[in-house]
Each structure stands twice: as C-alpha cells, then as structure tokens.
C-alpha cells in the first residue's frame, strides 16, 4: 500500500466513507455504532499506552477524527449539514436566518410558553413542551430524509435542516429551564 493512498483516507474522505456507510440521511444507527466501535478498538489511545510517541500521536489524531465523524453523523442537524455540504450546499446557520414567517411566529410563541413555565416553576408544562418538540423534530427529520435521499431537493432540505436546528436550540433551552425550575 502506498503512503498516498493511506493519506487519502485520513484527510479527504467523508464521514460516511470513514464508517463504510452509504451517504444517506436515513441512517442505520446499529451499523454506524458497530463500525465506530470496530475502528475505535483499533485506533484508541488505550491500545497504544505502551507504544512509542509516534504511534501515540497517530492514535490521538485518528481517535479524534473518528469521534468527530461519529458525533456529526449521530446528530440529526449536523448529519444533514454534512450531507448537504457533500452535495455542495451550504446550510449557512450563521448567515441565513431567513425563515418562513409562520415558522418564526411559532418559535416566538414557544419561547413565550417556555418563559411562562419558568416563571411558574412548572415542570409538568416543560414535560409537555418537550413531548411536542420530540414529535415535531421526528416529523422534520422524516421530511429531510425524503428531500435528500429520495427527491434530491438539496435547497429544500437546507431550509428543513435550519428548522431542525431552531428546534434543537429550543430543546437546549428546555434543558436549562429544567435547571431553573428544580
């Protein structure tokens, strides 16, 4: 094997290639986990604690790379972003804040609801919000899967991924709200 070929796998392959998975939004989670663990069991620093510096460094770099790829693919927002990037579409979380008015209104209402729950120290209201959010997120994920994997509508998928990101942020805020309520 040539050093060039080895380098190619290290630097430029997609996260999907790294785990030997097809580049699709709908993901076989068990296969991802099995591939992740299989690779980790070969490159993890615990395997090289008694090795030389060079191997320990290489192991650290690989494990870091594999962890990052795994984290990206497991996360529905990051997986969408990565996949769209592979198709040349930038989801542009930071710059593209243009969202349908209806969606934004809904987000505002949800945040007001959240504030009210915090004020009243109402954990049950948080539970209810979370349950609604979970099903809403699942719906959007299904839509993203369809847009990317079946329709190949990458621009449409980008907007859905941005929506999903909004909802994930709300999810984080609910977590913080629980801390305030407890």
């Amino acid at each position, binding site marked *: *094997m040539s*050093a060039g070929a*080895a380098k190619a*796998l*290290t630097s430029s392959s997609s996260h999907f290639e*790294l*785990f*030997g998975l097809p580049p699709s939004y709908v993901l076989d989670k068990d*296969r991802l986990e*099995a*591939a992740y*663990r*299989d*690779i*980790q*069991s*070969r*490159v*993890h*620093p*615990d*395997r090289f*604690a*008694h*090795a*030389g*510096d*060079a*191997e320990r*460094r*290489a*192991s*650290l*770099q*690989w*494990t*870091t790379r594999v*962890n*990052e790829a*795994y*984290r990206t693919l497991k996360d529905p927002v990051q997986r969408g972003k990565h996949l769209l990037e592979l198709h040349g579409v930038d989801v542009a979380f930071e710059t593209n804040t243009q969202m349908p008015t209806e969606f934004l209104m809904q987000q505002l209402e949800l945040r007001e609801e959240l504030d009210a729950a915090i004020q009243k120290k109402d954990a049950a209201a948080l539970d209810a919000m979370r349950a609604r959010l979970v099903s809403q997120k699942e719906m959007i994920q299904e839509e993203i899967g369809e847009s990317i994997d079946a329709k190949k509508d990458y621009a449409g998928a980008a907007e859905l991924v941005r929506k999903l990101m909004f909802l994930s942020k709300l999810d984080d805020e609910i*977590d913080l709200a*629980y*801390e305030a309520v*407890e």
Partner: protein
Amino acid sequence: MALLQISEPGHAPAPHQHRLAVGIDLGTTNSLVATVRSGVATVLPDAQGRPLLPSIVRYGLGKIEVGYAAQARQSDDPKNTIVSVKRFMGRGLKDVAHVENAPYDFVDAPGMVQIRTASGVKTPVEVSAEILKVLRERAELSLGGPLSGAVITVPAYFDDAQRQATKDAGQLAGLNVLRLLNEPTAAAIAYGLENASEGIYAVYDLGGGTFDLSILKLSKGVFEVVATSGDSMLGGDDFDQRLFCWAVEEAKLPPLSPRDMRLLQVRSREAKEYLTFHGEAPITARLSTGDVIDLKIDTETFCGITQTLVQKTLVPVRKALRDAGLTVEDVKGVVMVGGATRMPQIQRAVGEFFKRDPLNNLDPDKVVALGAAMQANVLAGNKPQGEDWLLLDVIPLSLGIETMGGLVEKIIPRNTTIPAARAQEFTTFKDGQTGMSVHVVQGERELVSDCRSLARFELKGIPPMAAGAARIRVTFQVDADGLLSVTAKEGTSGVEASVNVKPSYGLGDADIERMLRDSFEHAREDMHARALAEQRVEGQRLVEATRSALAADKSLLSDDEATAIEQTLAELEKLIGGTDHRAIKRAADALNKATEEFAARRMDAGVRRALAGKKIGNL
C-alpha cells in the same frame, strides 16, 4: 462476556513480559493501590495488612509522616497535618469552601492555594505526591520491582486544572502515569466485568469531598460513558461539617482553637459513621479550654440537618439523565461508590429516585481502585487483544474562550467523547490590530466570570489589517486523560501560538523538575541511577513496541524504509546497555521520529481492516 475480536498479531506481549502496573484511587479521605495478579484485581495492603491509606500528610521539622501516623497526630498538630488535600487540588483560595474551618496557614498563590507548614510552604500537588509516593513504595515492595506505570483516578467532574494537578502529583511521586481515569468509570469497569452487565447503568459516587454521577452504556466489551455530572465541592466531609456545626451550636461553644476544631471534627465524623449502624451516636470531647462536650444525636436529627445535602446530589443526577436523553426507567441498575454512600439516608434517597434498590455488592471503598487496576493492566499491554475492552469517556464540563463583553463561546461542549478536537474562527475587531489575547475557560455559564479560568495567552505578530479581515483559528485538543491543549493560528500570515493549559496555576514542567531534583538533593548518585533506570525502561518499551509493529506490518514499508527503522532501533538497543541516560533519550527520540510515517500507515491499515471486516460481515 462477549468481547470485540481483534485479529492482527503483534500487539500482545509474550507472557514473560508481564509489566507491573497499578491502579491508584487518590481519595479525599483514603487512598488505595491495587493491581491485577494472576488475572485477579486485588488491593495491596501495607505491612500491617491495612488496605486503606488515610490521605493525611504531616509535615514535621525535617520529617514527613503519611497515613495512620499522620492521622494520629492530626488533633495535636492541626496546622502541619493536612487532611482532605484533594479539595485544594488546582484550586485558588477563593474557590475553597469552609476556609474558616480549615486550621491551616494558607498562602494565596496565583492559580493554586499553598499551605505554610513546619517543613516550608507546600502546594497541594506536593502533598498529594507524598501520598502517592507511599503507595508507589508499597506496590514496588509487594510486587518486587519498579512499576512500569500507574492509572490514577480522578472525580469525573474534575476540571482541567484539577486533572493537571493530579497528573503532576503522579509525576512528582515518580510514577509513569498511564492514564487519568474517572472514578465512576473505574467503578463501572470493576462492576461490569464482575457481573457481565449489559445495558444502561448509573454510577452514584459520593466520596469524601466530591460527588459524581455518570451514566454508562455497557455492551459487548465496550464501556461507553453517555453523560456525566456532579459537584466537585460536595462529599462526605460536608456531612461531617454539618454535624460539627450542629455540635458547636448545641453545646453553645465560643470560637474554637485549631486544635479543638480538629478534635471536634474527628468526633463528628466518628458519630456519622456510628449512625450508619445505630439509631443514636454520642459526641464527646474534652477541649483544651477544659470544657467537656457530651452530646447525643439521633438518626432523625442527623437526617434533618443533612437533608439539603442529600437533595443537592439529586440535581446532577437529573441533569445527567437529561443530557443522556434518558429517564429513570431506562436505567438498569445504580452502582453505589464511595464510603459516604453507606449512609442510610443516601441509600433511601437514591432508591426512591431510581425506583429500584441501589447495587451495593462491591465494597464502595475499594471498587474504584480495583477498576483502575484492571484498566492499568490493559494499558500496560498485559491483556491479550480480544480479552480487553474499549473505554469511551467524556469531558464533564464545556470548554470555551472569552469573547467580546465577557461572554463565553463554547468550543467543546460537555459530554463530548474524548479524545476530541474542535476549531473555531475568530477575527480582529480593530483596524490594524496586531495582537489578540485568548482566554480559555471551562464551565457551563454564559459569563466568563462564572466559569473557571484555565489559561490566558497572547497571539502576537498578526499583520495589520482592516477590522474583521484576520482569520484566527483557535483549536482545542482534549486528550485521553481529559487534558486540554490550545493552539491559535492566524490564517493569512501563519502566525501561531500554543499553550499547554498548565501555567494557569503556576506549576510548569520546570517547577516539577526542580521539585524532583530537590527531593534527591542529598543523593546525586540516586538521581543519576534513577534517570538511567527511567530511560532504560522507556527505551526498552519503545524497542518492544517497534519490534512488534515491524513483525505485524513490515509490508507497509519499502525495503529502504524498513532498513532505516531497523538501524535506528539497533542503535537504541546498543545504548540501552550503556550508562549514558542522555544518549538513550536521544536515540529514543530518533526512533520515534523515524517511525512517524510508519505509525500513521499502521493506523490507517487498522481502520481499513475494520472496514473490510464489516463488509465481509455484511455479506
């Protein structure tokens, strides 16, 4: 239990190469050392057969006592007898709770507090190193040779400064620290292997001074930490403290002398332990003022005054479950760790919260050390591949940098699996700005002032540009010990700065070297002998590792490349037989350099084999 099968040969050492490796639980109250002998993890007792070493160090005039000897003197020499030093590791004076109740002469040093004793000013790192030295000597005596390496456990919720301080203490004690291992993770290894457990488990670890709650997924030879939370300023000590305050109030005592304070604290701890098995406990003491304290406390009162502490432990429990996206129903078992979990009110609260009886079948004082010993055995390479396991741990607290307005920009969020690296781009905010200061912090709060400051450094020499034109890429790398290093690089000019997040508490590599030198100052010969022994062990390790790498994967090298490595290897081997430790070090460095490309190719080949295995498996 079924374990991942790894097929390539060459890694497993031959049986005769068994390396002496230990696991050390460096506890707030007690410390232990354990090892794996004939496949079984066992705690190594002292010459008197006592497994625990009280984590107490007394600095007399020219004499240092550690353990029971120091414990015996704690009431009559409180100022020089340091207990619970773990509470001060990597902490500044303002971070230390109950300073007013600690009878020490504190010195407020930058980054980490110091203590003035009869043997001079001591850092918590030095005090901890004294404890570790005793454990190292105990292990070497008992195992009959120098240790090849040690795993030292830390609370999962320890931040970077506390971890770094612990690793430094290990180094200062002359240990080759193979890994810092989180205490609840160590307990999960010991518990999981003992019971062949599979599924989601919670580890509730209430030690002397720290509280950790970790949630792990155990399956097929993999220990995966899903989330961890805790409180690094909450432990069994706080229950003693509540009892102490209760006693002071109940007996209407005036402010106490350091000696009386320590005496009453010891009595309070004894009463707490007594209450675990009895409905009522006496607290009696004769103070130096002549006053006699004669109190009785019942379980109900004790539960009442400590109820808020018990409830406080449930906050991180809920947080960890939320972070893991799990509910109590998903948890298959709760492993109890740490002596403080013996308290009935803790057992009850945990049982009620998780709606199941906690698991107490392993000794809560020993389980961490045993798990650490098992991991040390794996890291030393004593376990053949296929029989070992994979451990995936996380960082407990988010890492970030200060941005405009004293706000924190998180770069690596908490519960990220380590090792991890993440980069973020920043820019200049003034025209012609040539420098940028990077302030690294750790914590969950949005304001810098609410987080822990880890390090500050300057990136200088940025070429003058318009505001917003520079591209400064800050990269955080967290290694397998959970330790952070940071680099910053300006994209257009390539100006670079990096920092090991160490100097924050003012103890650099040079300081450690000096301390090591000091401890050998009356024995120059000793120092040379020790350096030589260390370099020989290190060199031999490298020779073995390179040899087994060549045996397994020589096909990845061209003939010329292989010859070059073999020559460097032969050179190192020749020097190991000599007595020049610096020459050995140089030859080892050369071999490390010569094998860099080989190491990278081997790692790639490993991944390819993993993928190939998958494809065959899928057919």
